[in-house]
């Protein structure tokens, strides 16, 4: 068990410490960092999905007044390491996906740069391409592992035999589309190249981890880590797309080498983000469940087809949650990847769990109906005592408590059979799904505590992407030091601060919090409770003694009420409730935002989000916010999140397990299950749109 903190500020709804600066416009985001005499960069993107650049005519662009330079693969500075081909920007004539960077214009204003970029004429030797994920693709292979390092396939017991002899079976295919992270703040960077300065490269970046950007970019650019400084105090969302550097980061660094000391500024347009900043792979999920007539699972099979790029592998761990979710003696999971002529997929909020809990959680709803069981009761009957894969005890598994608490709060008892509840022109139904996310911590972070001016400076190169780190890490530091939050001066978002892990995998608060607690305790050990001015101590994240002993996961229950218009098929989620078991909640105010934000993104996934890749051209054609639909305020009607009052002493000294992602997991399945309950029409392909119902609804319903 970890040595638990005694609590004073933790658990209090402290208002965001950065809130006032943000609403006053005083918090500088990457593109707003004040720099002198910058040049502006506008990319030129490939208009073929596969081929080679045969010529680039930059004459008209260069002739334009205010153009500083036009970068192409013919004149761009050489990179030291091109092994990561996503980051090998302008190093060859090869085009591996439509929208790839094939050039860029540096100019005195962003308008001139954009105009000049439109004047660059690129010709190609175009080759046949394949950008479409389908189960009969000839591009499939089996990756060595799935993100980040899970076995690709598992096979326990005899699934086929168990399915063959099961009294009740579900066998269905579920699909989720390509989705884009689309943080509100686009991907932006300012690069300053100064070989004679303290840092050769200073990068103001919108990122989920300054240290991870530095670590990835330094070798690409042939620099020592110490030659690179990355600064990112405020970030307007990332959802995983800012978890690793992308091509634009390299482009801006190349441009800065060509701008004679002037800072180079780049803000991707929304359209450019659809090709250059990562996305969630589409998935095709074949789910088979076998059960006895009491609803006890005898077999689970979850076989996933998904995509990656030809230039770099990203293998979404879609079926991994299935390995721990329910008890069944026979279990099989698999992943196949099709390497297509597309941009590189990447992390998007709860990679793996988000798509991977859609298929199986809808299948569980189908199984409940096939068994004549309430879907909550079905899940209760299959709740495993120990991790079904490795047999480890749970640090805490309170899925059943979440389901029961949610059922009471939501009024689950009023649920009617499919298609039997109508209010005016609307068919109304309710649905439920489980949620889960692992409690993770990433080793390697360090924190410095220094006493100065009567306050404690707590420094760690962590990130706040809108999640509340400024506030919650201050609360943790205050409790670890035994001082009020006002006595803590937190510093984050700069590689000049001690190294910190990326804000990803819901691991930020666990990793950095554990680190700050260790540093605070070491500080007190070394300097006592009455330190002298300038006393300081640095410490790293200690190993969690329980991490290998226990299966550490969060759980949740997602409830949705859905209304489908009996004539038009329009679908709206009129009520959503999430009940979560996520360990100790550091700050109920920021936590609520995280949960509700995740659920909103799950609602959006259920009903709206879909990146449409045109197979002829190879790019996403609905690449703006008018056409790529994200839930609007009007779509988020009555949404509530709550959590069990608990602490997980096996997770970390705070007793917390991380909450950034669990809110999205299972939400789409709950909505889909509610839509079925409303209409009797089972939709297994996201997003669930009006056209799925309209043909099934007679013009004279009733």
């Amino acid at each position: 068990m970890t040595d638990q903190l005694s609590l004073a500020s933790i658990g209090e709804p402290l208002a965001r410490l950065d809130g006032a600066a943000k609403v006053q416009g005083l918090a500088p985001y990457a593109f707003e960092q004040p720099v002198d005499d910058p040049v502006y960069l506008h990319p030129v993107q490939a208009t073929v999905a596969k081929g080679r650049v045969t010529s680039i005519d930059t004459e008209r662009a260069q002739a334009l007044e205010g153009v500083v330079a036009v970068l192409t693969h013919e004149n761009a500075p050489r990179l030291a390491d091109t092994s990561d081909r996503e980051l090998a920007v302008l190093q060859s004539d090869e085009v591996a996906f439509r929208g790839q960077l094939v050039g860029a214009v540096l100019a005195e204003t962003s308008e001139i740069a954009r105009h000049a970029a439109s004047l660059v004429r690129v010709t190609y030797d175009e080759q046949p391409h394949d950008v479409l994920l389908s189960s009969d693709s000839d591009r499939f292979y089996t990756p060595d592992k799935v993100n980040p390092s899970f076995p690709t396939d598992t096979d326990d017991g005899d699934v086929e035999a168990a399915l063959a002899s099961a009294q009740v079976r579900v066998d269905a295919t579920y699909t989720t589309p390509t989705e884009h992270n689309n943080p509100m703040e686009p991907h932006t960077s300012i690069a300053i190249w100064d070989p004679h300065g303290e840092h050769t490269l200073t990068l103001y970046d919108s990122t989920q981890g300054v240290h991870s950007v530095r670590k990835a970019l330094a070798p690409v650019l042939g620099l020592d880590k110490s030659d690179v400084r990355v600064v990112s105090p405020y970030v307007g969302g990332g959802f995983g797309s800012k978890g690793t550097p992308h091509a634009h980061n390299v482009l801006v660094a190349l441009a800065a080498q060509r701008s004679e000391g002037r800072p180079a500024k780049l803000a991707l347009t929304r359209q450019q983000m659809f090709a250059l900043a990562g996305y969630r792979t589409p998935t095709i999920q074949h789910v088979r469940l076998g059960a006895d007539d009491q609803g006890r699972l005898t077999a689970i099979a979850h076989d996933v087809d998904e995509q990656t790029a030809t230039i770099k592998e990203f293998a979404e761990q879609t079926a991994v949650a299935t390995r721990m979710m329910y008890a069944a003696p026979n279990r099989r999971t698999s992943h196949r990847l099709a390497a297509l002529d597309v941009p590189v997929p990447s992390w998007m909020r709860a990679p793996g769990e988000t798509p991977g809990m859609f298929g199986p959680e809808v299948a569980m709803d189908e199984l409940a109906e096939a068994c004549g069981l309430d879907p909550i009761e079905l899940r209760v009957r299959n709740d495993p005592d120990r991790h079904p894969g490795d047999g480890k005890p749970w640090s805490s598994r309170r899925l059943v408590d979440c389901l029961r608490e949610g059922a009471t709060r939501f009024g689950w008892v009023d649920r009617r059979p499919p298609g039997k509840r109508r209010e005016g022109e609307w068919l109304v139904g309710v649905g439920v799904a489980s949620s889960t996310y692992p409690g993770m911590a990433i080793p390697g972070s360090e924190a410095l505590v220094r006493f100065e001016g009567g306050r404690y400076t707590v420094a760690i190169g962590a990130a706040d992407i809108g999640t509340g780190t400024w506030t919650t890490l201050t609360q943790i530091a205050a409790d670890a030091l035994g001082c009020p939050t006002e006595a803590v001066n937190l510093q984050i978002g700069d590689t000049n601060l001690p190294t910190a892990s990326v804000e990803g995998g819901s691991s930020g608060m666990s990793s950095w919090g554990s680190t700050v607690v260790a540093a605070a305790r070491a500080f007190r050990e070394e300097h006592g409770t009455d330190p002298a001015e300038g006393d300081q101590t640095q410490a790293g994240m200690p190993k969690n003694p329980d991490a290998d002993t226990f299966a550490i996961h969060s759980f949740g229950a997602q409830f949705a009420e859905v209304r489908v218009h009996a004539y038009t098929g329009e679908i709206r989620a009129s009520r959503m409730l999430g009940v979560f078991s996520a360990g100790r909640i550091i700050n109920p105010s920021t936590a609520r935002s995280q949960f509700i934000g995740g659920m909103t993104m799950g609602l959006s996934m259920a009903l709206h989000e879909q990146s449409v890749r045109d197979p002829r051209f190879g790019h996403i054609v609905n690449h703006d916010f008018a056409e790529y639909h994200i839930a609007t305020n009007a779509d988020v009607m009555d949404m509530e999140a709550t959590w069990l009052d608990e602490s997980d002493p096996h997770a970390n000294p705070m007793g917390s397990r991380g909450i950034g992602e669990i809110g999205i997991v299972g939400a789409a399945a709950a909505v889909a299950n509610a839509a079925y309950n409303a209409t009797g029409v089972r939709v297994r392909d996201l997003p669930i749109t009006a056209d799925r119902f309209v043909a099934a609804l007679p013009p004279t319903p009733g």
Partner: protein
Amino acid sequence: MMPFEYEQAQDPAGAVATVTGRPGAAFLAGGTNLVDHLKLGIAGPDLLVDVSRLPLDAVEPTPDGGVRIGTNVRNSDLAAHPLVREQYPVLTQALLAGASGQLRNAATTGGNLLQRTRCVYFQDVTTPCNKREPGAGCSAIDGYNRYHAVLGASEHCVAVHPSDMAVAMTALGADVVVLGAAGERTVPLIDLHRLPGDSPGRDTILEHGELITAVQLPPLPMARRSTYHKVRDRASYAFALVSVAAALDLDGDTVRDVRIALGGVAHKPWRASRAEEMLRGATAGEEAFVAAAEAELEAARTLSENGFKVPMARNTMVAVLRRLAGITGDAS
């Protein structure tokens, strides 16, 4: 963005003269569509004549009992205007179903009518589009055409007109007042927008340099009982899959008069004249509504991804007419 000149119009006639005399000139009003086009490279005018500050922003009753709407009346203001809310609720509802609050505050009446299709291929200069570049080919016919036309389309273009406001105005039988170099003319709104035919590049019958100065709504007492239903993929800020503007006048159970227009189905706001004809004199009820809707849609031609629009348009017409007829609850 291409560089361009900008000037503020001093009066309507001057603006018309300037634009008429310069092939590369364009009018700028609210800018909610044209400015996007400048950024995306869809439009490259060499001169913008800003007409947004011309004093054409009144909503006034006309002597015959109708309403005249100045071209520069903002969508938000028009939606909120008491005359519109009382006499033409369908128009208020349609306006409020369009775009977002911010856009409605900027968008003007004339500009709303003249906004261009949101077909994704039209809006992307890297893909062929006959509307943007005649003869280039239509990418939508065999592409992403979920939002595209089922009525009145051609082999050259299957785009739809995106306006909600125009659908309501079409149902109301509005006229458009147009100022050209040769003077003023009045065009029925139903004739303003074209079907694509073999020249999809032209959205309307307007000549270069002609400026919409006003929209006139005729007196239409039956419009007090009117409504707009927009079916869309999310509850706000989404273009219509299908929309229906309708007004119904009943004499007992008998339809004395009816107005129906459809949005999201054609290159122009679609007046459902065939359905109207069938309904006039008929007994209001589910049966007549379904028959009329199906008759209107008989000519529908669907593409790979928009076949749902036919039952959706039928059902939406039926739902709206039921509501206007005061039929509630399940049909038996």
